[in-house]
């Protein structure tokens, strides 16, 4: 039985694969289209957005849905560092990397989506802030989170890379590593409070949508339900990344950690579903779950995907890796639909108004997702991100020492932190 002991880079496989070039091509096309969008505007063929549906994929999917998936950094982190769940430390680096990529591509996408991005500089002048605006809270907290605590949390693998690969810079990197360890608790706590704040504010956004958001979704507790959904989405994303690594590069899986992740996912989903139903019941809107046609169907689709997957994960079958993969994928799908609903699927903008993304809008959206995927693929091959064993590290060291003579990956004397 494999026990994860340390993160080990994916070694012995090329970085420049066919997939790499395909993603890069999509990114280049997307960036060219983005440049065109900056000149000609957002309407017409560039997007399917209109005055009633003023928000399209770029905000509702790339930011509101994908930063939900990228919430592993705080959802897994809180369990590991605040609630002292030691089993989760091996997957922290995967969680942090996915978070970092999801947030940074989301923020860039936001810059493309807004019509007058040059006015964003007001964000550094607090006296101009409208403290009542949920979007302001997101703009401030999200950029602060992505550029300070989340960024810092992702540095240790980079420091290690420098230490191993560039001995001439080793002193500086080791100094940085030590400095980081000194302030680490302050950084991680900031990395948890900020996402709790802005992930809930993403839900608060649609409170101002009033009764245009269907009553099954519209509630004063939307912020709480939204951040809670981000929590299980974060777990789904981490599990899927680890299992995909097994599929792609035959990385061993630690069943103890996986079962712990399953257990936490199941409890977050159960409490989330329970709270959501309680909210609907207390508001007296439960009959809408049966009478409102398309909206009722959407509501039950979400519930079935999320709750059904969690149930499967809680059974014996959920321990089988293939079932586990499928259950987490479907759970993530359900959670993503939930995060997409208040802005789009369950948003009755205006009688007769519909929204469907245009081809250009879709390509730009996908190209920003591709940046994150490409970044992930390169990072796990260059840096120690994916969890592995000490034995695997030794094998990797043996391989690397043949390729790059002189590199020291083993035999370090203990240093006190």
């Amino acid at each position, binding site marked *: 039985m494999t026990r994860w002991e*340390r993160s080990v880079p994916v070694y012995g496989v090329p970085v420049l694969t066919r997939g790499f070039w395909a993603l890069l091509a999509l990114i280049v096309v997307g960036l060219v289209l983005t440049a065109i969008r900056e000149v000609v505007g*957002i309407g017409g063929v560039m997007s399917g957005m209109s005055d009633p549906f003023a928000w399209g994929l770029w905000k509702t999917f790339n930011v509101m849905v994908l930063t939900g998936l990228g919430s592993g950094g705080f959802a897994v982190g809180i369990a590991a560092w605040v609630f002292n769940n030691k089993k989760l430390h091996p997957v922290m680096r995967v969680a942090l990397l996915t978070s970092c990529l999801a947030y940074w591509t989301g923020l860039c996408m936001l810059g493309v989506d807004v*019509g007058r991005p040059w006015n964003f500089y007001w964000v550094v002048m607090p006296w101009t802030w409208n403290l009542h605006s949920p979007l302001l809270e997101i703009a401030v907290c999200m950029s602060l989170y992505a550029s300070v605590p989340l960024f810092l949390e992702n540095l240790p693998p980079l420091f290690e890379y420098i230490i191993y690969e560039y001995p001439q810079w080793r002193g500086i990197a080791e100094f940085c590593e030590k400095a980081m360890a000194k302030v680490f608790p302050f950084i*991680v706590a900031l990395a948890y409070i900020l996402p709790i704040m802005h992930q809930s504010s993403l839900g608060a956004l649609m409170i*101002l949508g009033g009764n245009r958001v269907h009553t099954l979704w519209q509630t004063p507790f939307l912020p709480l339900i939204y951040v809670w959904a981000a929590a299980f989405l974060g777990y789904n994303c981490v599990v899927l990344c680890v299992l995909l690594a097994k599929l792609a590069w035959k990385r061993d899986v630690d069943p103890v950690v996986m079962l712990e992740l399953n257990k936490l996912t199941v409890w977050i989903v159960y409490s989330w579903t329970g709270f959501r139903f309680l909210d609907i019941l207390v508001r007296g809107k439960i009959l809408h779950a049966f009478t409102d046609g398309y909206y009722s169907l959407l509501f039950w689709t979400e519930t079935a995907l999320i709750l059904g997957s969690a149930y499967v994960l809680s059974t014996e079958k959920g321990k089988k890796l293939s079932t586990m993969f499928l259950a987490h994928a479907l759970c993530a799908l359900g959670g993503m639909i939930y995060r997409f609903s208040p802005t789009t699927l369950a948003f009755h903008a205006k009688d007769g108004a519909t929204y469907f993304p245009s081809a250009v809008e879709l390509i730009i959206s996908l190209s920003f997702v591709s940046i994150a995927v490409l970044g992930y693929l390169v990072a796990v091959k260059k840096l120690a991100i994916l969890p592995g064993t000490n034995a695997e590290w030794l094998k990797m060291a043996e391989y690397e020492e043949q390729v790059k003579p002189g590199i020291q990956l083993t035999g370090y004397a*203990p240093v006190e932190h």
Partner: protein
Amino acid sequence: MAMTRREAFKNLAKGSLPILAAGCVSTALPEVAHAEEEKQAPKGALGLLYDATKCVGCKSCMVKCSEANDLKPDTRTDGIHQAPPALNYFTKNIIKLYRTADGSDHSYFKQQCMHCIDPGCMNACMFGGLRKDEETGVVWWLGSKCVGCRYCEIACPFHIPAFQWDGFNPKIVKCELCREPIAKGLRTQPGCTEVCPTQAVIYGKREDLLKEAKSRIAANPGRYYQQKVYGEHDGGGTQVLYLSRVGFDKIGLPELSEESIPSGLKYSHAVYKWLALPIALYAGMVAFAGKNFKAHSHHLVEDQKKTGLRPQL
């Protein structure tokens, strides 16, 4: 690692402090939320009174509006007539027709910014790109503070702000009650009220308009839908008031509660009051993470002694 009783108590106290603080804040929540007072219209609040029963649908107000605001007429429908299908970035004011399928009943209606007393758009706007004049209560757009996020369009229950979907320098376009031309002395009242041949739309102070509307209802019993002035309380009250014979929902006015759109956020604001809750949570998490991190680093060093591999943070 064994823990002495003293340490156990200390940890318990440390851990329960933030929880206690969080508890205090959350029990105080309902009161705090209530304390956020209901917004009142400013003393000199200006507005419009539109009486749909008087409107003949001549659309002169649309033409005059474009002229007064230097807007290009939107002739995109047929290349000749100024006939926009809805409010858009060429059109701050529009006259539409409600008609039943068999033609038995109809009513014209006008759409423009309602100049809410507690505007959703302004509440949504990040840096105050949409603002309310302190004296007149007119809601207007300031381009230098607008990021173009279009949250105002999501937050407006009346679908008023229009975004310019073309070009690299888009604007948010909406009725500002001819604020600028009036301030420059170019005109004394908005274009639409100036040209209206039947006085279907009139301009003035909100309180005067409200009195006028109520006297019309009193003078013509049974003429007006629900004997009600739309905008007196709807959505927390608006400075543009409506009278209609047909249902308000038929003429594009949504059914809103007496609570304003931003008041939906009062609980969220209470959570952020003085940032007390986030700061308490942060302090608690620093304490726990600090303690757990110490134990974890210790474990890492021990591990390295055995394996000779560099510890990973």
